[in-house]
């Protein structure tokens, strides 16, 4: 890890102002992607802006059927929050399955979502639940948020501050975890909402995506059988040493069927 200047602002405005002023700055949340990247010298920022000194970024609130989770909330806090467990149990279960206990104590929901790792769990929940991403400058509908592998619409210096989840009628997340890292080889999040069924898939493709063919089938008939004839295109899938593209395409339907089974 190259050396850098370290800053710990105490407000969002101060953090953003630092980011704009400094030569090549990065925000630091839980650090569980950033610090390994710095060690590998995949990133070499001049300045690191630690967000931990900003009050309120780790809060969980439930009001008016919206569950709002601060961007700096650790995975373990989402997993063990009685509010999250009662409003969207699928979200607390997802958080409980990320990485391992020590990682869940430090890694944050905002860090994970802003990073848009193709194999991360949270993007599936954010997209599946039709969440809104709140930043220091605007609110972003999730259907516009994820744009590619490690890419989002967040602008330079724009800071994700909270994620707002509307309460679904029901939701489930099923993943086939990588046996070593627990990242999703394929993870499928299915939510039944007042606006219809949403199916979001992570791990399979360069970015989390909605399986619209599955959504259409489930809107007609919410059953495992409705998915039986659906196979996603292997050409759009990732392929690596963990799983071939064909296997990932196959897992998408299998995990989706298991999620539907949980909800039936």
């Amino acid at each position, binding site marked *: 890890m190259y050396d850098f200047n370290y800053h710990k602002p105490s407000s969002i405005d101060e953090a953003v102002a630092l980011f704009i002023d400094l030569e090549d700055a990065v925000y*630091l949340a839980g*650090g569980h992607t950033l610090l390994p990247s710095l060690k590998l010298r995949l990133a070499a920022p001049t300045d690191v802006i630690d967000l931990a000194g900003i009050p309120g970024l780790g809060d969980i609130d439930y009001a008016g059927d919206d569950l709002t989770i601060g961007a700096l909330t650790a995975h373990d806090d989402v997993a063990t929050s009685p509010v999250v467990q009662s409003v969207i149990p699928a979200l607390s279960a997802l958080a409980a399955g990320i990485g391992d206990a*020590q990682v869940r104590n430090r890694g944050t929901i905002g860090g994970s979502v802003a990073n848009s790792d193709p194999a991360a769990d949270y993007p599936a929940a954010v997209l599946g639940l039709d969440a809104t991403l709140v930043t220091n400058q605007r609110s972003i509908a999730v259907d516009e948020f994820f744009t590619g592998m490690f890419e989002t619409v967040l602008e330079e210096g724009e800071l994700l501050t909270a994620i707002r989840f509307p309460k679904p009628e029901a939701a489930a997340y099923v993943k086939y975890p990588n046996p070593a890292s627990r990242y999703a080889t394929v993870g499928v999040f299915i939510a039944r909402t007042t606006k219809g069924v949403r199916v979001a898939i992570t791990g399979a493709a360069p970015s989390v995506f909605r399986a619209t063919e599955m959504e259409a089938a489930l809107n007609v008939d919410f059953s495992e059988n409705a998915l039986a004839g659906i196979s996603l295109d292997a050409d759009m899938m990732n392929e690596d040493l963990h799983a071939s593209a064909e296997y990932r395409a196959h897992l998408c339907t299998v995990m989706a069927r298991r999620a539907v089974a949980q909800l039936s």
Partner: protein
Amino acid sequence: MSISVSMNVNGKAVTQECPANTTLVDLLREKLQLTGTHVGCDTSQCGACTVHMNGRAIKACTILAAQCEGAEITTIEGLGDANNLHPMQEAFRECHGLQCGFCTPGMIMSAVDLVNREPSLDETIIREGLEGNICRCTGYHNIVRAIETAARKMRN
């Protein structure tokens, strides 16, 4: 950039000057000579560097010392000593919950956090709770037995 960080380590107030890119585990081992916390993989996978930060198990290789400003850190040295072992350390000895011993400090720190957090433990919960700790000797069976034994003692 050199920074000054202050934290509480094993009950003692500590202030150190260090480069901003110093990780907590490097501060513990190189500056404070607390070498019971080990570095195995240095990539937040093996868990040999596990310590407690404000009571929660974390991987000390994946946090900057600067991020621990004002925190309470407990390392294996703060848990007990040779004449006054923590029940978890005692149970690892009794059950022979180690082979080479390299992973043991991290295993013990994770295990203490697990017992403190989980109201009831069974073998499945213990094995899942140790997912962030890797033993290259693969001596997991006795580690699980040690944690079951210690949990009973810690609850009494």
